[in-house]
């Protein structure tokens, strides 16, 4: 990705270059499937859709906030301590998210437990700050943040939907709780024919699902295949 900071020439917020910032991370430079960053949290919190949604929103908030702040300060941040400054920015945003979740979404906060705190170590965020926000204007930086957070989010959502549907036979959304859509009579426990796949609930299955997404993506776009 170009990190050149061209002054003088004014370009519209939705120029071709900027649209690329939004679109690329969704597909050909997806942070999870292509760059393989932020995998840890993607595996850990995709048991339920509800957790994935909250996690994605948290990451979106931290990404936008972090990219915006660092981009605004990019000419002020002393080079020698720039990584520390980025860390402080990310860490404080994450603490804010954690506190807000504890206050307004206590149940989800309990389930996400340490993984909210671990957003701090999510390489996607640090990577975008260092590679993009530090060298670009606030506008494109925010777009880049949204693009990457969305790239992270859609993988999380797909994986969590697959895992929850096959693992728990249900779908959960924040504020709605878990909706079981399979009739009770279908289950073997009540003399039916269906059983939830417990393997889906375990972390290894998240890796397999992510792997399948990577497979599909690369078989559709040969340019992504490395030797």
């Amino acid at each position, binding site marked *: 990705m170009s990190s050149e900071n061209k002054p003088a020439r004014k370009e519209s917020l939705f120029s071709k270059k900027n649209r690329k910032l939004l679109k690329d991370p969704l597909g050909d430079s997806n942070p999870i499937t292509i760059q393989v960053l932020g995998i840890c949290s993607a595996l850990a919190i995709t048991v339920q859709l509800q957790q994935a949604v909250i996690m994605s929103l948290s990451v979106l908030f931290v990404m936008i906030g972090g990219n915006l702040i660092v981009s605004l300060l990019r000419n*002020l*941040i*002393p*080079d*020698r*301590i720039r990584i*520390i*400054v980025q860390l*402080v920015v990310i860490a*404080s945003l994450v*603490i*804010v998210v954690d*506190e*807000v979740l*504890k*206050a*307004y979404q*206590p*149940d989800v906060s309990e389930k996400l*437990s*340490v993984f909210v705190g671990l957003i701090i170590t999510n390489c996607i965020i640090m990577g975008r700050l260092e590679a993009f926000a530090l060298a670009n204007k606030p506008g494109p930086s925010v777009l880049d943040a949204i693009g990457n957070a969305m790239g992270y989010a859609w993988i999380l959502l797909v994986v969590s939907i697959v895992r929850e549907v096959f693992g728990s036979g249900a779908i959960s959304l924040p504020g709605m709780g878990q909706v079981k859509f399979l009739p009770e009579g279908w289950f073997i426990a009540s003399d039916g024919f269906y059983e939830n796949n417990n393997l889906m609930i375990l972390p290894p299955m998240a890796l397999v699902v992510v792997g399948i997404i990577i497979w599909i993506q690369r078989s559709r776009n040969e340019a992504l295949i490395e030797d």
Partner: protein
Amino acid sequence: MEVNKNSTFYTFTFSIIMVVIVGASLAYTSLSLKPLQKANAADKQMVDVLGAIQVKSSRSNAKADFQKYVVERISIDYNGNKVNSKTGDVVASDANDPFNIDVKKDYRSNKPAKGDMAWGNANELEFPFYVCEKEGDTLLVIPVVGSGLWGPIWGYVALNSDNQTIYGVKFDHKTETPGLGAEIKEDFFSVKFDGKTLSEAAPYFSVLKGGSNTDEHSVDGITGGTITSKGVEEMMNRTLDIYKKFFESEA
């Protein structure tokens, strides 16, 4: 004025300003959200107390259910003498309300040394418990706090009115290993305690290694979660020791 951004002075000034701004804004966030978080924690505590007497409640119903089942909140001192007793609504600002005693904090700051039953500062502490009525039975719910492998574990033990038989338990943890020690919060573990009895003298109850023969006063621990299981045993014995004194003085 030209500022040299590579100078040490600039770097220091920048970091000092940054730390002050970040510190102030985080302190503000934390303080303004505190009341909500406290209320959430209180709801959770109610849900857990009710969980020990096997009433499934949720955060939104916690207050009403707590009112319905818990008839009295009592605190005792280390020697088993009654200190405070409250009935009716829980008042969050009332420091004398046994519900508001922070047992986790008390444990953290007065933790007994390893292998020792005695607490530091024990005489200044108060120990709460809850008297509940469920379907005509009187049940006592005792909060227990201890240490697992990685961090604190805690729970509630509900006893029948004979002060001997366990009616139900509910455990929780902060950072135990998922799939191993963390299983203490699952129902399959806590149902094993139902109907077991405490023995007359210490150790009142044991959590044995998985697969051992269990008797009236013991349950199977969690395979792969030995230290957490032992933590459960330790916290039950240490805490029940204090309440025993109260039960004896009552009898």
